[in-house]
Structures are given as C-alpha cells and as structure tokens.
C-alpha cells in the first residue's frame, strides 16, 4: 500500500488547488476523484453555465443594438452548436487541471474514496492508499425534493446543461441564484420562463434595493414570470409537458428546472471509520483553519456548509493544504465576494446594509446609479447601481453591493478595499480612470458623505 503525506478526496475547485499547493510545499500528494476533474464548478456549474450565459448575453446584445444604429435581422441560435462549444471549453479546462496536477507530481486516482480508518483510504477498485493527512473536498449536489417526479422533463441544474435543445417554456422551482441565473439565460434566448419561490422574494440574501433592481429587469425586461411566497404542488410530468399547481392556478411548461438548494456529498465516505461525524444538516464541521474534529483530517468547500462558492472552496483549500503540511495553522480568509450572473449581474461583498444595521453599529451608506456615469451611458448599459456600506464613526468600508453592468467584475475592487481595511475617504480620494464603470465606486464613496460630484445633492433636513 502506497502512503502519501496528504490525500485529497475530490478534485473540484477546492480539492485540486489544495493538492497542487501541498505538492508545491514538498508533500507527497494523491487526489481521488470519482467523476471528473474540476468538480461541479468546471463540469456542471460555474464554467459551463457562464458559456451559456455569455451566448445569451451576446444574443441579447445583437438583437438589441438598435440604439447604436445596428439592426440585425435573422439572428438565430444553434443551441446544439452552443452546447458543443460549452463542452469544448469544459474539456479544455479539464485537461488543463490534469496537466497541472501531473506536472506538480500529484498522483491521480479515479474512484470513490472511503475511510477504512483515519489513515487509510479505500478505493472503489478494492485497493487502498495510506494517508498521513486527509483533506475532504467532496462538495455538494443538487437537493432534489422527494415530491418531484422522476422524469426527463424534470431536471436539476446539472441535467439542464445536457438537454439537447432549449424548451419552449420552462418552470423554475426555487428563486435562488442558480435558478435565477439559468432563468435569465433561458429567457434571453427566447424561453418562456416562470419562477416559483416559496419564500417572500427571490435572491433573499441580497438587500431589498438590490433585489428590486434584479427582479424588475427579470420581469419587465426579460418577461420572466416570478411567483413568490407560493409553493408548486401536485407536480406531474408526462409525454407532452410538466404541470404543477401554484395556488389556484395550474402552471404548465415543457421543462421543470429544480433549483432548491444543494446538499453535501458524504455518502460512501464512511466518515465514522475515521471517527468523524457530520453536523445536524449533514455538513462536516470545521474551524477557521479547515480542521475537523479529528486530528489530521481537514475539510473544505461545499461539504463544510459555510459559503457554497468555488472561490471560497479554493481559499479554504489553500489554507488547508498549508495547514496539513506546515505545523503553524493559518486561518483562511472569510471575506468572500458573492457574484450572481443574472441580467443584470450582481456582486456583493462584506456586510449587506441589512446585516450592518442589525450588527448594532451606526452605518452610513452611499449609492450611485450607473445612469449618472458617462461610460455606462456610452455603452448603453445604465441599469443598476453600486453601494457602499461604511461604519459611520470611522468610515471603515464594511460592505459593498453592485448590481448592473459588469457587477461581477466590479466587486473585485470593493473586495480588495474592504480586505485592506480602507476607509470611505481614502477610496473616494483614489483616482479612478475615466471613463470606466469603476468610477461608480469613487462616486459612491463621495456619496456616503453626500459629496457626490455627479449626482444632485440630497435635500437636507
């Protein structure tokens, strides 16, 4: 039995960087993957959906370019070609991951890993490898509620990516970010979309003003029907369509996309053989240094149930790898930008305005709409705003939200600023290139003190 300094279980965006990092620190490392290198992110999540969303966005731009004097007739979409392109991107990235792992001397194993004991990992082919330390990075999978019929017309986000052609109409169960992203994408490509969300609004983690901006465009701009505070019941899938009762109304569509959340993957790991138990909700509990309750076993990413985002898993993975190899524990960062690829896009980081106010401190906020920005007007992308949430006493930047054009890119500046503990004054004095969308942050920083140059002053008193 070959024994490694570190065995990483799962080669997603948390696991493979952890393996490479540990190898670079001089450890002998093995990684076990049961399906595809790159995990959900690369194969069925972030990357493939962004390929589709980029296509939808381009399509929408082409067909809505009249303001620039561009009229395109006969624009059409070959969905099969798009899927082929998506698959090409995915396999290119996947082979990139494989090369990186191999080049760093990480040994790859394919199969399902399970604990025999704290230091022995059994593989599904019957062999076993020894592990001085283990990082569990098994991720999560779509939670499919039991009441959904098992039918080809009922898919989760992963299944959705494999459909050969777009449906004419689609029901989306769940108004979280996965449901909303795919709903926007499909609607931009001409699918008639209805979202049903049990809670009182979609994207509930966002501040109300941000939510309102997104929902407004989804409903009015993209024609998506959004039903909130309602359950979808009595769901039936047949040869012709899928139907469900929503209150009094019967909804009918060609396809139902279930996007009600994700659950951790721990089945088959036999954690109990390592003396490890999952928490109440099935997640593996860890501390800031990614340590589980069992010495030498670390966990990162979605399976820890903290923030279910690829980049957070990567940050955890690198910290876990260092902590597994080095003696001195290093906590991972906890300031996580959150990006949503809806139309309009959303980026948030740090405290939301709601949370900041609840945190029992005086806060000041500033907001600046893209409609007041030269670059946004020139680009014909004026929807949305950026917002700073700052500590009233010290001016410390506590949080930021961007909704609108390039919001998912714009949030990077805010993340760096908050991480560096900048104050709103300094951000405001930082020279921002003109004309760019980034200027919105500077204007907003001025707006915190009511000193925005390019917005009408607020009436006082």
């Amino acid at each position, binding site marked *: 039995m070959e024994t490694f300094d570190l065995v990483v279980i799962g080669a997603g965006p948390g696991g493979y960087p952890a393996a490479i990092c540990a190898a670079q620190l001089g450890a002998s490392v093995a990684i076990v993957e049961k399906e595809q290198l790159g995990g959900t992110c690369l194969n069925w999540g972030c990357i493939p959906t962004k390929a589709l969303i980029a296509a939808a966005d381009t399509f929408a731009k082409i067909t809505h370019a009249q303001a620039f004097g561009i009229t395109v007739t006969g624009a059409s979409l070959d969905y099969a070609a798009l899927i082929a392109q998506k698959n090409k991107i995915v396999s290119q990235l996947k082979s990139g991951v494989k090369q990186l792992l191999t080049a760093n001397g990480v040994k790859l194993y394919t199969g399902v890993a399970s604990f025999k004991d704290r230091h022995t990992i059994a593989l599904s082919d019957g062999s076993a490898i020894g592990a001085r330390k283990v990082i569990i990075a098994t991720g999560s999978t779509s939670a499919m509620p039991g009441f959904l019929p098992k039918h080809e017309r009922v898919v989760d986000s992963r299944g959705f990516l494999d459909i050969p052609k777009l449906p004419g109409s689609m029901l989306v169960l769940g108004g979280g970010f996965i449901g909303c992203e795919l709903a926007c994408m499909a609607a931009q490509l001409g699918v008639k979309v209805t979202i049903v969300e049990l809670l009182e609004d979609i994207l509930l983690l966002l501040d109300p003003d941000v939510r309102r901006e997104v929902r407004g465009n989804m409903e009015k701009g993209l024609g998506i029907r959004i039903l909130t505070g309602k359950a979808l019941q009595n769901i039936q899938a047949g040869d012709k369509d899928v139907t469900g009762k929503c209150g009094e109304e019967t909804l009918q569509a060609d396809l139902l996309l279930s996007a009600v959340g994700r659950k951790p993957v721990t089945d088959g790991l036999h954690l109990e053989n390592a003396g490890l138990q999952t928490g109440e909700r099935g997640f593996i509990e860890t501390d800031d240094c990614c340590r589980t309750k069992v010495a030498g076993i670390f966990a990162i990413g979605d399976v820890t149930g903290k923030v279910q985002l690829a980049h957070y898993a990567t940050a955890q993975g690198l910290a876990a790898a260092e902590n597994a190899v080095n003696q001195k524990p290093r906590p991972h960062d906890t300031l996580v930008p959150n990006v949503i690829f809806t139309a309009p896009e959303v980026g948030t980081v740090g405290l939301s305005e709601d949370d900041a106010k609840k945190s029992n401190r005086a806060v000041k906020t500033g907001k600046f709409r893209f409609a007041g920005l030269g670059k946004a007007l020139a680009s014909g992308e004026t929807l949305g705003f950026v917002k700073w949430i700052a*500590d009233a*006493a*010290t*001016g*410390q*930047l506590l949080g930021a939200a961007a909704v609108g054009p390039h919001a998912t890119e714009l949030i990077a500046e805010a993340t760096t600023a908050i991480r*560096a*503990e*900048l*104050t709103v*004054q*300094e951000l405001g004095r930082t020279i921002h290139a003109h004309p760019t969308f980034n200027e919105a942050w500077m204007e907003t920083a001025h707006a915190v003190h009511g000193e925005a140059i390019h917005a009408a002053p607020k009436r006082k008193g």
Partner: protein
Amino acid sequence: MATPIIMPKFGQMTEESAIVEWRKQEGDKVAKGDILFTVETDKSVMDVESFEEGTLLKILVPPHVNVPVQSTVGFLGKPGEAIPSVSPPAPAAPKAAMPAPTTPPVLLAGQRAPPASVVSAPVAAPVTPSSQPAAPPALFRISPRAAALARQCVIDPAPVKGTGPLGRVVERDVRQYLQSRGYDKLRVTPAAKELAAKEGVDLLGLVAAGEGRISLAEVQRAIAEKPKAMSKMRQIIAQRLTQSFRDIPHFYVTVPVDMSDLIAYRNVLKAAGAPYTVTDFISQAVVLCLLEFPTVNSSTDGRTIRWHSQVNLGLAVSIEGGLVVPVIPDAGRLTLTEISATSKQLADKARAGKLTPDEMSGGTFTISNMGMLNIQNFSAIINPGEGAILAVASTLPQPVVREDKILIRQIMQITLSLDHRLIDGALGAQFINAIRSKLEDIELWKRLTS
C-alpha cells in the same frame, strides 16, 4: 419656581451616591412615579422615582459622579421656567486621605455602629477617574503643535520627554520620540488608524500581527482589553475583601459533616409540607453555636474587642455581577421557622435587587453556602467587622469508615475561617465541631421542628 431633584438617602449609613444613568433627558416630560434615574449606592443599585410631575429642566449631576446624599442633582418644573443658579454639588472627595466621620460604607455585612478603629478605612474610589478633579491640566506641558502631531499620528504623548522651555514638549520632541520608537516602520490600515484615533488607542502600543501591519483586529483587541471602571459593587467587594484579607490573619478549620440523617429527616418534613431548606438547618445550628461561643460572635480591630450582644446572621447571596450579604437581625431570638421565612424573603429581595442598605448592615457572622455548586470544599474571606465566616461545600456521597465497615454516607464539608487575633485554634475546632454535632443530632431537629 423649578423644584429641585434631591439625591435620596437610601440607608442610615449612605453618605454619597452616584447616578448610574439618567432615565429621562433634559426636556423630557416626567409623570409622577416615573423613574428619573438609577443610583448606585455603596451597597446596591436602585431606581429613583419622581414625586412630582413636570418637565426635566436641568441635569446638574452627570452619571458616575459621587455626590453627597441630599444634594440637588437636577430640576423639575414647567418648560421655560427659571432655574435657580446653583452650582452642581462638589463631587464627594476621595476619603482615602481623610478620616471619615462615620462607618465606612458596607456592601457585605457591616456593623451596627462604627467601631472607632475602622473609621479611617479607605472607601472605594469614585467610579470613573474623570469624576474627580485631576491635578490642574498642565497647559504648558505640551505645545499645541506637538499635541497636534501626536494626535495626527495617533500616539499618546505622555511618555515624550520635553526639551522646550521649562521642559515643555515641543514638536521636535514628538518627532524625536516617533523616530526612536520606529513609528515610520509602522504599517497601519486606514480603518485601523481611524478607529484607534477615535478610541484613543496608542498605535505605538500595538503589535502588528499576521501580515505585518496593524489591522482592525489589533485595535479592537486593544479596545477590548483597555482597563474599564469596575462597577461600584465590584469596587466595594474588592476594597472590603482586600482590607479583610490584608488586615485579618485568617486561619481555617474543616470538618466533614454526615448529613445523611438530616437530609432524610428534611425529606420527611418536606413531604409533609414543611418549607425548610438544608441551609435553614445550617443557619439554625450556627446560631445556636454562636450563642454558646460568644467569642466567635465578636470582632476586633487589633486593639479592642467588640462583643456583639446579639447574633446578626449574614447569608451571602450570589447575584448578577457580584454578591450581597443580607443580614437576619437578632437571629438568636428566632425559631427555625422564622429563620427559614426571613432567609427566603431576604434572598428573594437580594436576587430582585431590592435589598435596602439597612438590610445588608450589621452582620456579626456570615454563612457562605456553595453547596449547590458541586464543590468538595472551599474557604471564605471574613467580612470586615466580623470574627469568622462559615463556608459550606456540597453534600456528596462519600465512603466512611464506621465500626470497621465502609459505608456510603452523604458528607458535607464545612470550613470555618477565623480571625486569629480573636480566636485560637482550639476554640475554632470546638466551635466547628459543635456545628457538626448539632447537624448530626437528629433528636435536636425533631425537638426544634415539633
């Protein structure tokens, strides 16, 4: 004419009090019975209600300033009414330096009358240092430019040595100091600097962690670790217990008490509806013993001995933020039932924060019962003005040897702390064994409860 609001006198021995919080602000309407402010006396915290209605016109005494009782702390009246020009009462001077005219304030059990010798005992310092007029501000000590530079750099200029006229700190001194302390090598995040400036944290006192720069985390830690004024209650506890532990030569005697029979008997009584707690039996046993051994019911200042003619039994009660010792006066004249009822009443009042200072005064002996806290044994510190204190630990099943057999019995350890100036070892041993034999004498309890 506006009506003055008077700082009430809460107990016979309360001489000064500090307002903890004004519950009404200037300009607020006040109805009869509304709480105007909360007061921290040297023994407790209490609400002060308004006897009249009107508008709070003026607050003369801000929170946390000790003022003599009966002084005017504010004015009530109709809006716009003239307020007599009264200067705020001078804060009570710290008494450490001068002999107090009467007894020192007591939080734990105190004396009925002041023993002559403890008069000059220092009382707790006022709650905040700022409430005392400090030495006149040394206007000349630092130049405005130097002070501005220190402020701008978020450092404390106090350690800077002055080289200006008459040793005044001038800008060049601050610069020199900054250089010698390596200020230019300090890396501070902007938000951390703002917060440090706001909270008066000296950046030079911080050590950068992690990424080599001082971040919010370090400033927040410094703020959290800044010494904060103790509550008045804790100040009193600290002052009195320090005084006791420093001045009284303590010694300790411990015995195990077999409580098996008494607990069984008490359970029988309880089943029959009698309200006695185990503490009540201990109190009764202690009272009986104090009547037998009057020396233990006395106190000394080291030169004189006071023999207390009655047993005033203090019972330590743990409350939020500290402890108080309500006193059962003249417990020697009470029956077990009366002791039980009084104890319960006082403990309830203590937990509700409703004890009056007089109910916490005059103790001659104290029982501290930690039986419910699952401990083997402990020793207590004698309350000033008393000669001994009994510490009661938990009753736990223990192996006991009787007639060469090992039995399991319910054993409670009790430890007596004694003032060796008054009481010698032999007497201490006799006294604690007397308590023990009373508690183990089931016939006695049958007599007392029948």
